[in-house]
Protein backbone atom coordinates (compact mmCIF):
# COMPACT_ATOMS: atom_id res chain seq x y z
CA UNK A 1 0.00 0.00 0.00
CA UNK A 2 1.98 2.95 -1.20
CA UNK A 3 0.78 6.48 -0.69
CA UNK A 4 -1.57 7.50 -3.44
CA UNK A 5 -3.06 4.09 -3.93
CA UNK A 6 -6.76 4.21 -3.16
CA UNK A 7 -6.41 6.76 -0.48
CA UNK A 8 -7.19 10.38 -0.53
CA UNK A 9 -4.63 12.86 0.55
CA UNK A 10 -6.18 14.60 3.51
CA UNK A 11 -3.49 17.28 3.63
CA UNK A 12 -4.11 18.21 0.00
CA UNK A 13 -7.86 18.55 0.54
CA UNK A 14 -7.18 20.64 3.63
CA UNK A 15 -4.84 22.87 1.65
CA UNK A 16 -7.41 23.23 -1.14
CA UNK A 17 -10.13 24.19 1.31
CA UNK A 18 -7.84 26.71 3.02
CA UNK A 19 -7.02 28.42 -0.29
CA UNK A 20 -10.68 28.43 -1.26
CA UNK A 21 -11.73 30.00 2.01
CA UNK A 22 -9.02 32.63 1.77
CA UNK A 23 -10.08 33.29 -1.84
CA UNK A 24 -6.54 32.61 -3.08
CA UNK A 25 -6.62 31.85 -6.80
CA UNK A 26 -5.88 28.15 -7.35
CA UNK A 27 -6.85 25.08 -9.34
CA UNK A 28 -7.28 21.41 -8.53
CA UNK A 29 -5.98 18.82 -11.00
CA UNK A 30 -7.21 15.22 -10.84
CA UNK A 31 -6.00 12.35 -12.98
CA UNK A 32 -9.26 10.87 -14.31
CA UNK A 33 -8.04 8.34 -16.82
CA UNK A 34 -4.82 6.53 -17.51
CA UNK A 35 -3.87 4.28 -20.40
CA UNK A 36 -0.63 2.41 -20.70
CA UNK A 37 2.16 3.10 -18.33
CA UNK A 38 1.67 6.41 -16.54
CA UNK A 39 3.37 7.68 -13.44
CA UNK A 40 0.26 7.90 -11.24
CA UNK A 41 -3.15 6.31 -11.25
CA UNK A 42 -6.62 7.77 -11.60
CA UNK A 43 -7.66 9.81 -8.61
CA UNK A 44 -4.23 11.33 -8.01
CA UNK A 45 -4.52 15.02 -7.27
CA UNK A 46 -2.41 18.12 -7.35
CA UNK A 47 -3.22 21.62 -6.14
CA UNK A 48 -1.80 24.55 -8.07
CA UNK A 49 -1.70 28.14 -6.78
CA UNK A 50 -1.68 31.19 -9.01
CA UNK A 51 1.95 31.82 -8.03
CA UNK A 52 2.82 28.42 -9.51
CA UNK A 53 3.45 26.59 -6.25
CA UNK A 54 2.07 23.07 -6.03
CA UNK A 55 0.84 20.69 -3.34
CA UNK A 56 0.85 16.99 -4.10
CA UNK A 57 2.30 15.47 -7.22
CA UNK A 58 0.99 13.75 -10.30
CA UNK A 59 4.30 12.15 -11.04
CA UNK A 60 6.82 14.90 -11.54
CA UNK A 61 8.80 15.58 -14.66
CA UNK A 62 7.49 17.03 -17.90
CA UNK A 63 3.93 15.77 -17.41
CA UNK A 64 3.60 17.56 -14.13
CA UNK A 65 5.16 20.73 -15.49
CA UNK A 66 2.69 20.70 -18.38
CA UNK A 67 -0.29 20.23 -16.07
CA UNK A 68 0.95 23.01 -13.85
CA UNK A 69 1.23 25.31 -16.85
CA UNK A 70 -2.27 24.41 -18.03
CA UNK A 71 -3.63 24.91 -14.51
CA UNK A 72 -2.31 28.47 -14.49
CA UNK A 73 -4.31 29.07 -17.67
CA UNK A 74 -7.39 27.52 -16.06
CA UNK A 75 -7.03 29.88 -13.09
CA UNK A 76 -6.94 32.81 -15.54
CA UNK A 77 -9.86 31.58 -17.66
CA UNK A 78 -11.99 30.46 -14.75
CA UNK A 79 -13.48 27.39 -16.40
CA UNK A 80 -12.55 23.73 -16.04
CA UNK A 81 -10.93 21.64 -18.73
CA UNK A 82 -9.72 18.13 -19.45
CA UNK A 83 -6.05 18.19 -20.30
CA UNK A 84 -4.86 15.31 -22.41
CA UNK A 85 -1.27 14.25 -21.91
CA UNK A 86 0.37 11.98 -24.41
CA UNK A 87 3.59 10.53 -23.13
CA UNK A 88 3.96 8.13 -26.02
CA UNK A 89 5.30 10.82 -28.33
CA UNK A 90 8.86 10.63 -29.58
CA UNK A 91 9.67 13.79 -27.69
CA UNK A 92 8.82 12.05 -24.44
CA UNK A 93 11.28 9.29 -25.30
CA UNK A 94 13.85 11.87 -26.33
CA UNK A 95 13.46 13.60 -23.02
CA UNK A 96 14.12 10.28 -21.35
CA UNK A 97 10.69 10.06 -19.75
CA UNK A 98 10.14 6.64 -18.32
CA UNK A 99 6.42 6.43 -18.96
CA UNK A 100 4.86 5.70 -22.27
CA UNK A 101 1.21 6.18 -21.43
CA UNK A 102 -1.67 8.54 -21.98
CA UNK A 103 -3.22 10.47 -19.14
CA UNK A 104 -6.34 12.65 -18.89
CA UNK A 105 -6.29 15.26 -16.19
CA UNK A 106 -9.34 17.23 -15.11
CA UNK A 107 -8.34 20.72 -14.05
CA UNK A 108 -10.87 22.90 -12.28
CA UNK A 109 -10.48 26.40 -10.92
CA UNK A 110 -11.33 26.56 -7.23
CA UNK A 111 -10.77 30.28 -7.17
CA UNK A 112 -10.29 32.08 -10.49
CA UNK A 113 -8.30 35.24 -10.98
CA UNK A 114 -10.75 38.11 -10.76
Amino acid at each position, binding site marked *: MTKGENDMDRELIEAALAL*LEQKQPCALA*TVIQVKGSAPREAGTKMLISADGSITGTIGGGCAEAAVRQEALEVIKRGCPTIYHLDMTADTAADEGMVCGGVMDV*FIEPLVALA
Partner: protein
Amino acid sequence: MAKAAFLRQLLDALEEQKQAVAATIVKINGDYPGVAAGNSLLWTGEVQHGSLGSKELDEKVAGLAPEVLAKHRPVLETLEAGNTAVTVFLEPVVPRPEILILGGGHVGQQVEAVGKIAGYRVTVVDDRPDFANRALFPTADKIICNSFTEALKQIKIGPMTFITIVTRGHRSDYECLRAVIGSPAAYIGMIGSRRRAKGVLELLEAEGVATELLQRVHSPIGLDIGGETPAEIAISILAQIIQVYRRGK
Protein backbone atom coordinates in the same frame (compact mmCIF):
# COMPACT_ATOMS: atom_id res chain seq x y z
CA MET B 1 -19.83 28.32 -2.12
CA ALA B 2 -20.79 24.82 -3.20
CA LYS B 3 -17.21 23.65 -3.77
CA ALA B 4 -16.10 24.70 -0.29
CA ALA B 5 -19.04 22.83 1.23
CA PHE B 6 -18.13 19.78 -0.84
CA LEU B 7 -14.48 19.86 0.23
CA ARG B 8 -15.52 20.32 3.86
CA GLN B 9 -17.79 17.26 3.64
CA LEU B 10 -15.00 15.34 1.95
CA LEU B 11 -12.59 16.28 4.73
CA ASP B 12 -15.17 15.28 7.34
CA ALA B 13 -15.60 11.90 5.67
CA LEU B 14 -11.84 11.39 5.70
CA GLU B 15 -11.52 12.46 9.35
CA GLU B 16 -14.46 10.39 10.51
CA GLN B 17 -13.19 7.50 8.40
CA LYS B 18 -16.55 7.28 6.67
CA GLN B 19 -16.85 5.30 3.49
CA ALA B 20 -17.89 7.65 0.73
CA VAL B 21 -17.81 8.25 -3.01
CA ALA B 22 -16.99 11.63 -4.54
CA ALA B 23 -18.51 12.41 -7.94
CA THR B 24 -17.52 15.33 -10.15
CA ILE B 25 -18.74 16.32 -13.59
CA VAL B 26 -15.74 16.61 -15.89
CA LYS B 27 -17.45 17.05 -19.25
CA ILE B 28 -20.83 17.86 -20.80
CA ASN B 29 -21.73 17.36 -24.43
CA GLY B 30 -24.35 20.02 -24.88
CA ASP B 31 -26.29 22.10 -22.42
CA TYR B 32 -28.43 21.19 -19.50
CA PRO B 33 -29.65 23.84 -17.09
CA GLY B 34 -27.88 23.67 -13.75
CA VAL B 35 -25.41 21.03 -14.87
CA ALA B 36 -21.82 22.22 -15.25
CA ALA B 37 -18.32 20.76 -15.27
CA GLY B 38 -16.88 21.00 -11.78
CA ASN B 39 -20.18 20.24 -10.01
CA SER B 40 -19.52 17.76 -7.23
CA LEU B 41 -21.39 15.66 -4.76
CA LEU B 42 -20.39 13.36 -1.96
CA TRP B 43 -22.28 10.12 -1.44
CA THR B 44 -21.98 8.53 2.00
CA GLY B 45 -24.58 5.82 1.74
CA GLU B 46 -27.36 7.37 3.76
CA VAL B 47 -26.86 10.94 2.64
CA GLN B 48 -25.81 12.80 -0.46
CA HIS B 49 -24.08 16.10 0.15
CA GLY B 50 -24.32 18.58 -2.69
CA SER B 51 -25.67 17.91 -6.16
CA LEU B 52 -24.45 17.52 -9.72
CA GLY B 53 -27.21 19.94 -10.68
CA SER B 54 -29.91 17.44 -11.67
CA LYS B 55 -31.85 15.01 -9.55
CA GLU B 56 -31.66 12.46 -12.34
CA LEU B 57 -27.84 12.55 -12.33
CA ASP B 58 -27.64 12.45 -8.52
CA GLU B 59 -29.79 9.31 -8.51
CA LYS B 60 -27.62 7.67 -11.14
CA VAL B 61 -24.54 8.41 -9.07
CA ALA B 62 -26.21 6.91 -5.99
CA GLY B 63 -26.86 3.80 -8.07
CA LEU B 64 -23.22 3.47 -9.14
CA ALA B 65 -21.58 4.44 -5.86
CA PRO B 66 -21.79 1.13 -3.97
CA GLU B 67 -19.89 -0.65 -6.73
CA VAL B 68 -17.22 2.06 -6.88
CA LEU B 69 -16.76 1.67 -3.15
CA ALA B 70 -16.65 -2.11 -3.30
CA LYS B 71 -14.05 -2.13 -6.08
CA HIS B 72 -11.91 0.58 -4.48
CA ARG B 73 -11.31 2.03 -7.93
CA PRO B 74 -12.23 5.34 -9.49
CA VAL B 75 -14.29 5.19 -12.71
CA LEU B 76 -15.24 7.55 -15.47
CA GLU B 77 -18.91 7.13 -16.44
CA THR B 78 -21.00 8.77 -19.12
CA LEU B 79 -24.48 9.46 -17.78
CA GLU B 80 -27.53 11.04 -19.35
CA ALA B 81 -29.32 14.10 -18.13
CA GLY B 82 -32.28 14.39 -20.44
CA ASN B 83 -30.61 13.97 -23.83
CA THR B 84 -27.31 15.42 -22.72
CA ALA B 85 -24.30 13.16 -22.19
CA VAL B 86 -22.51 14.04 -18.99
CA THR B 87 -19.15 12.52 -18.06
CA VAL B 88 -18.73 11.99 -14.34
CA PHE B 89 -15.63 10.97 -12.43
CA LEU B 90 -16.49 8.82 -9.44
CA GLU B 91 -13.86 8.04 -6.87
CA PRO B 92 -13.95 6.10 -3.63
CA VAL B 93 -13.05 8.05 -0.53
CA VAL B 94 -11.05 5.53 1.39
CA PRO B 95 -9.21 6.96 4.33
CA ARG B 96 -5.66 5.79 4.79
CA PRO B 97 -5.39 3.38 7.70
CA GLU B 98 -3.80 4.96 10.71
CA ILE B 99 -1.66 3.40 13.37
CA LEU B 100 -2.03 4.98 16.77
CA ILE B 101 1.01 4.21 18.88
CA LEU B 102 0.45 4.68 22.58
CA GLY B 103 3.89 4.77 24.13
CA GLY B 104 7.05 6.20 22.59
CA GLY B 105 9.55 3.70 23.97
CA HIS B 106 11.78 1.30 22.06
CA VAL B 107 8.95 -0.74 20.58
CA GLY B 108 6.84 2.33 19.77
CA GLN B 109 9.77 3.83 17.88
CA GLN B 110 10.19 0.72 15.76
CA VAL B 111 6.44 0.42 15.11
CA GLU B 112 6.53 3.99 13.79
CA ALA B 113 9.42 3.21 11.44
CA VAL B 114 7.90 -0.01 10.10
CA GLY B 115 4.41 1.50 9.93
CA LYS B 116 5.63 4.36 7.76
CA ILE B 117 7.49 1.96 5.48
CA ALA B 118 4.23 0.07 4.99
CA GLY B 119 2.48 3.32 4.07
CA TYR B 120 0.24 3.90 7.07
CA ARG B 121 -0.48 7.21 8.73
CA VAL B 122 1.16 7.15 12.13
CA THR B 123 0.30 9.04 15.31
CA VAL B 124 2.42 8.71 18.43
CA VAL B 125 1.36 9.58 21.97
CA ASP B 126 3.51 9.70 25.09
CA ASP B 127 3.25 11.79 28.23
CA ARG B 128 7.02 12.26 28.49
CA PRO B 129 8.57 15.00 26.30
CA ASP B 130 11.72 12.87 26.06
CA PHE B 131 9.68 10.17 24.35
CA ALA B 132 7.31 12.25 22.25
CA ASN B 133 9.50 14.32 19.99
CA ARG B 134 10.53 14.71 16.37
CA ALA B 135 14.05 13.43 16.94
CA LEU B 136 12.76 10.02 18.01
CA PHE B 137 9.91 9.97 15.47
CA PRO B 138 11.23 11.61 12.32
CA THR B 139 8.51 10.28 10.02
CA ALA B 140 5.39 10.26 12.24
CA ASP B 141 2.43 12.19 10.87
CA LYS B 142 1.54 13.42 14.33
CA ILE B 143 3.25 13.41 17.72
CA ILE B 144 1.21 14.21 20.80
CA CYS B 145 2.84 14.91 24.15
CA ASN B 146 0.09 14.74 26.73
CA SER B 147 -1.30 12.35 29.30
CA PHE B 148 -2.73 9.30 27.53
CA THR B 149 -6.26 9.87 28.77
CA GLU B 150 -6.25 13.54 27.73
CA ALA B 151 -4.75 12.75 24.33
CA LEU B 152 -7.25 9.98 23.72
CA LYS B 153 -10.14 12.35 24.38
CA GLN B 154 -9.01 14.43 21.43
CA ILE B 155 -8.05 11.75 18.93
CA LYS B 156 -10.71 10.52 16.54
CA ILE B 157 -10.73 6.74 16.50
CA GLY B 158 -12.55 5.15 13.59
CA PRO B 159 -12.84 1.85 11.73
CA MET B 160 -9.50 2.54 10.01
CA THR B 161 -7.59 3.13 13.24
CA PHE B 162 -5.14 0.48 14.40
CA ILE B 163 -4.15 0.94 18.02
CA THR B 164 -0.96 -0.43 19.54
CA ILE B 165 -0.64 -0.06 23.27
CA VAL B 166 3.07 -0.15 24.07
CA THR B 167 3.47 2.14 27.06
CA ARG B 168 6.15 1.85 29.74
CA GLY B 169 4.03 0.04 32.30
CA HIS B 170 0.85 -1.75 33.07
CA ARG B 171 -0.68 1.29 34.79
CA SER B 172 -0.55 3.29 31.54
CA ASP B 173 -1.50 0.23 29.48
CA TYR B 174 -4.59 -0.08 31.63
CA GLU B 175 -5.51 3.60 31.23
CA CYS B 176 -5.08 3.41 27.47
CA LEU B 177 -7.02 0.19 27.04
CA ARG B 178 -9.80 1.51 29.23
CA ALA B 179 -10.06 4.63 27.06
CA VAL B 180 -10.15 2.79 23.72
CA ILE B 181 -11.87 -0.50 24.48
CA GLY B 182 -15.30 0.79 23.45
CA SER B 183 -14.02 2.54 20.31
CA PRO B 184 -14.75 1.38 16.75
CA ALA B 185 -11.01 0.80 16.10
CA ALA B 186 -10.12 -1.89 13.57
CA TYR B 187 -7.48 -3.30 15.85
CA ILE B 188 -6.37 -3.03 19.45
CA GLY B 189 -3.12 -4.70 20.43
CA MET B 190 -1.50 -4.51 23.85
CA ILE B 191 2.07 -5.41 24.66
CA GLY B 192 3.15 -7.27 27.77
CA SER B 193 3.69 -10.73 29.04
CA ARG B 194 0.68 -13.01 29.16
CA ARG B 195 0.51 -12.48 32.91
CA ARG B 196 0.73 -8.69 32.82
CA ALA B 197 -1.85 -8.45 30.03
CA LYS B 198 -4.16 -10.83 31.84
CA GLY B 199 -4.02 -8.60 34.93
CA VAL B 200 -5.08 -5.55 32.90
CA LEU B 201 -7.90 -7.44 31.19
CA GLU B 202 -9.18 -8.83 34.50
CA LEU B 203 -9.17 -5.37 36.01
CA LEU B 204 -11.36 -4.08 33.20
CA GLU B 205 -13.64 -7.08 33.36
CA ALA B 206 -14.13 -6.44 37.08
CA GLU B 207 -15.13 -2.89 36.17
CA GLY B 208 -17.89 -4.26 33.99
CA VAL B 209 -16.35 -4.09 30.50
CA ALA B 210 -18.07 -6.68 28.30
CA THR B 211 -16.14 -9.89 27.66
CA GLU B 212 -16.74 -9.62 23.89
CA LEU B 213 -14.93 -6.29 23.89
CA LEU B 214 -11.99 -7.65 25.85
CA GLN B 215 -11.72 -10.63 23.52
CA ARG B 216 -10.99 -8.22 20.67
CA VAL B 217 -7.71 -7.22 22.26
CA HIS B 218 -4.66 -8.77 20.65
CA SER B 219 -2.45 -9.72 23.53
CA PRO B 220 0.29 -10.85 23.52
CA ILE B 221 0.62 -8.39 20.65
CA GLY B 222 1.85 -9.31 17.17
CA LEU B 223 2.06 -12.51 15.15
CA ASP B 224 3.99 -15.22 16.89
CA ILE B 225 7.26 -15.25 14.94
CA GLY B 226 9.52 -15.41 17.95
CA GLY B 227 10.57 -11.75 17.81
CA GLU B 228 12.94 -10.63 20.54
CA THR B 229 14.29 -7.19 19.68
CA PRO B 230 12.10 -4.08 19.49
CA ALA B 231 12.43 -4.09 15.69
CA GLU B 232 11.46 -7.76 15.44
CA ILE B 233 8.47 -7.19 17.70
CA ALA B 234 7.46 -4.15 15.64
CA ILE B 235 7.55 -6.25 12.49
CA SER B 236 5.36 -8.90 14.09
CA ILE B 237 2.92 -6.16 15.17
CA LEU B 238 2.80 -4.72 11.66
CA ALA B 239 2.31 -8.20 10.22
CA GLN B 240 -0.71 -8.62 12.49
CA ILE B 241 -2.08 -5.19 11.57
CA ILE B 242 -1.69 -5.95 7.87
CA GLN B 243 -3.49 -9.25 8.37
CA VAL B 244 -6.41 -7.52 10.07
CA TYR B 245 -6.47 -4.74 7.47
CA ARG B 246 -6.31 -6.99 4.42
CA ARG B 247 -8.15 -10.05 5.65
CA GLY B 248 -10.36 -8.52 8.29
CA LYS B 249 -9.16 -10.86 11.02
